[in-house]
């Protein structure tokens, strides 16, 4: 229960319905063109100054992005591992201490509720980060386990540093061990006496780090990082820049590229891990987990479901929201995310398509793009090729020790 005793504090619920992250003042100070949106109930920037330049900081220098609005659940207790094995589809027993795994979790019908990252801090101590809120589901699933679920979302904040100079910036800040930190690994350390947890993770497909800390040290931390980053091209970014990078990396987002089964009102909108191209995460050899039986059964059926595909599109127009056709006439699906990729120099997209098992369909796909130019639509029919994500593959993403720039 969030007690707001004072009348004026209670009034914030309607006078400022969106939360402010502890980094809000910092990001607001960087804004020259203020564009804000609602990310999980937080007032978050879409663009701070220039979308493209913000994007290029991810790919060329070092970007700083506020990840505080993510939900952060701390899961502790002697049966934390068993609980997480029931909750999520991967085998948590195989996850070493001080590592991070990308994972997802399903409802009892095997439909994906959300994806997220699981940080194993110690044997019995985990942090689960996700786009959507899941406290009731976590508590329901925890029945009978010796485990405590703490919603840290409002107490822990986070910053994502992504880009080729991010490692040298952290070196400059005196983070020992950054050279030995492999992708998807984490450790706890201090920057200027500020306790932080740092992991080599991110949502960009680039070299980068995510750093979590307590709310009360946020200001001091960001000030240190910002000042140290002057010579490393540090740039504060909003969501639009990050979104370009994540599409290039081929990452999907709940309720953008697929509808979480928690939100789906129409039953045929729910998706199983295979449909998201994430069947490889599911460990069917481990014991019971939420949705296991349904996932097993679904493998026996002829899947007629929509699946997510990565697409390259002919021409230079981005295809956001466009309809995909087989043979230029039969509708087979919709583009969920699309950009012109500055790194790949291609029009790229993620789409959900219903192709069945027919391989031949894949060879004859087209997208209808309505490109609005000076109040008139140019209707384009462009060839689509299905590719294997990611759209870009950067060696620096996984190089260890990481390069300087």
């Amino acid at each position: 229960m969030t007690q707001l005793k004072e009348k004026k504090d209670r009034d914030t619920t309607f006078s400022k319905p969106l939360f402010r992250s502890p980094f809000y003042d910092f990001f607001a100070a960087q804004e020259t063109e203020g564009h804000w949106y609602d990310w999980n109930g937080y007032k978050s920037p879409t663009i701070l100054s220039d979308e493209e330049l913000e994007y290029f900081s991810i790919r060329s220098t070092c970007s700083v992005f506020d990840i505080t609005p993510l939900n952060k659940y701390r899961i502790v207790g002697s049966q934390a591992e068993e609980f997480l094995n029931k909750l999520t589809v991967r085998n948590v027993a195989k996850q070493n201490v001080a590592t991070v795994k990308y994972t997802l979790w399903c409802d009892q019908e095997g439909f994906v509720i959300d994806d997220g990252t699981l940080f194993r801090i110690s044997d019995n101590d985990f942090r689960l980060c996700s786009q959507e809120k899941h406290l009731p589901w976590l508590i329901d699933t925890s029945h009978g386990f010796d485990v405590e679920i703490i919603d840290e979302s409002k107490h822990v904040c986070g910053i994502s540093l992504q880009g080729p100079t991010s490692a040298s910036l952290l070196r400059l800040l005196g983070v020992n061990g950054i050279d030995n930190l492999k992708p998807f690994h984490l450790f706890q350390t201090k920057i200027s006496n500020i306790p932080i947890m740092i992991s080599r993770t991110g949502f960009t497909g680039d070299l980068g780090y995510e750093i979590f800390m307590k709310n009360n040290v946020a200001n001091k931390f960001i000030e240190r990082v910002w000042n140290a980053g002057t010579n490393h091209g540090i740039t504060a970014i909003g969501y639009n820049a990050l979104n370009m990078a994540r599409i290039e990396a081929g990452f999907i987002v709940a309720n953008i590229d697929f509808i979480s089964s928690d939100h789906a009102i129409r039953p045929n909108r729910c998706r199983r891990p295979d449909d998201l191209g994430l069947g490889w995460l599911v460990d069917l050899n481990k014991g019971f987990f939420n949705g296991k039986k349904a996932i097993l059964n679904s493998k026996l059926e002829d899947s007629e479901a929509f699946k997510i595909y990565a697409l390259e599109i002919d021409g230079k127009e981005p295809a956001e929201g466009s309809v995909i056709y087989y043979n230029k006439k039969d509708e087979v699906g919709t583009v969920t995310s699309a950009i012109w990729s500055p790194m790949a120099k291609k029009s790229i997209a993620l789409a959900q398509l219903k192709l069945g098992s027919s391989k031949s369909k894949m060879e004859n796909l087209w997208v209808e793009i309505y490109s609005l130019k000076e109040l008139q639509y140019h209707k384009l029919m462009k060839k689509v090729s299905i590719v294997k994500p990611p759209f870009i593959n950067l060696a620096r993403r996984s190089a260890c020790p990481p390069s300087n720039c």
Partner: protein
Amino acid sequence: MQSVGKNFDVIVIGSGHNGLVNACYLQKAGLNVLVLEKNDWIGGAAVSRELHPGILYSNCSYVCSLFRPEIMRDLELPKHGLQIVAIEGGTVFTKDGDYLASFRNYHAKKRELERFSVKDSESYSRYSRDILKQCRFIQPLLMRTAPDPASFKFRDLSEMLYILRKVNDLTASELADTVRFWTMSISDFLDEYFENDVIKASLAVSGIIGTALGPMSPGTAYVLLHHYMGEVDGSIGAWGYARGGMGAISKALTSSFRAMGGTLLNNSEVEKVDIRGARVKGVILKNGDEYLAKNVVSNADVKRTFLKLTDPEHLPPNFIKKVNNFKIRGSSGKVNIALDSMPNFPVISENNPCLKGDIHFTDSIERMERAYDDWKMGTWSRDPFLDMMIPTLTDPTMAPPGKHFMSCFVQYCPPKVGGQNWTKENKDAFGETVIQQIADYSPGFKDKILHMEVRTPKELEEEVGLTEGNIFQGELTFDQLLFNRPIPGYAQYRSPIKGLYMCGSSTHPGGGVMGAPGRNAAVEILKDLNLPDSDIRDAYEVL
């Protein structure tokens, strides 16, 4: 007995909103329609009267959500002055000196819930999703005549098939949820999502309004759904004010009706439906006047229609028995208050918009259930549940600036007190109980009262004509819904007598200012008269 005026094609008894909707559609189809209203005002329970100089009341119904947008469009009600304005806010005062507010803004709403329970605030999304799923299932059924499951007529079979297909579209777990939803109590339903008492109490409200059941009675979850399946401009579940009070709906309908050439007479109380040789001939008024028509549509409830307005000699005994047993128990009263100035609620800041919505003082399901216990014992609740609104905070047309109209829907209030008729003393004491509950949270409240209209079920029955004062013309329990509403075999707006129809809330899909019963009845009547119903649009699709 003398015959006055001319012959009409159709006579509609009662100018309630369903009577007017029905009359409009029939007039629009080219019939010559007469509406007879016993009062000197129109609108039945959708009425606004100026009972204190300068202050317009919504005397019975007080908010609008269910009224079908298709009907507003067909009958050009916006052109005739109808405007529905979205409502901001809502609040429950708690006994410990706090309050739980509600806002249209999603995050403001969630943050308020978070003050009481973080888990419940998150559960709210899943709760809304599940309610919305149920609404989507039921919404398309509202503007369709329910099939007779015992009939082998093509239309009944195909309509049954339509429902079965919809059922078939549900997954196994959704079907289970639907069946549970239609039968379980609102209290049990909310327990599946929420842990906090105040949150549950605030949401349980829609499960008991207008119903002689407590929040722990089976069947109340459906009543909640019934209140949710409306919309304001596509926002499902939202409620709005009719600008100018609920009477504005009746006014717009009357204006539309008259513009099409229809006739409406006030002060014309129908005494009997005139039936000769098993078919309708017309109606006879209390004053002895007779009006002739081959078709009579009753907007009165099923009990009034067949136990008072129709001689029993024309009706089969089984039918009469079923009508007698139709559940139409009165459970609520209404206290309407004209206020000299805005009441002060010290716990709430002046700029907090939550007072613009529905205001409650019942902070637990337990208290609601105890209020129901009093009703079962034959008296009004000592600690009643109030659904209170101050529409003049949103609508400037109902009172001069600074003055206010306050509408208090009060539950529970029995049709008789301890088996005896209501006395003036009882009525005053009931009014005082309500005023005191408000004054407990608003010091100086009583001094602001300029005028007060207290309506127990007795007044609702005598003035509006609702049997026992039941606002839905019959309870919305599963045994009285769809093809069982009001009576199995007579769920298609017809009666055992040729030419006599029903169009009130006693019929499918039930109560609330929805207009669907009146509209659906018009479709059936036109069918019997072999007239096209092309001016009646189908329900908008639910995508």
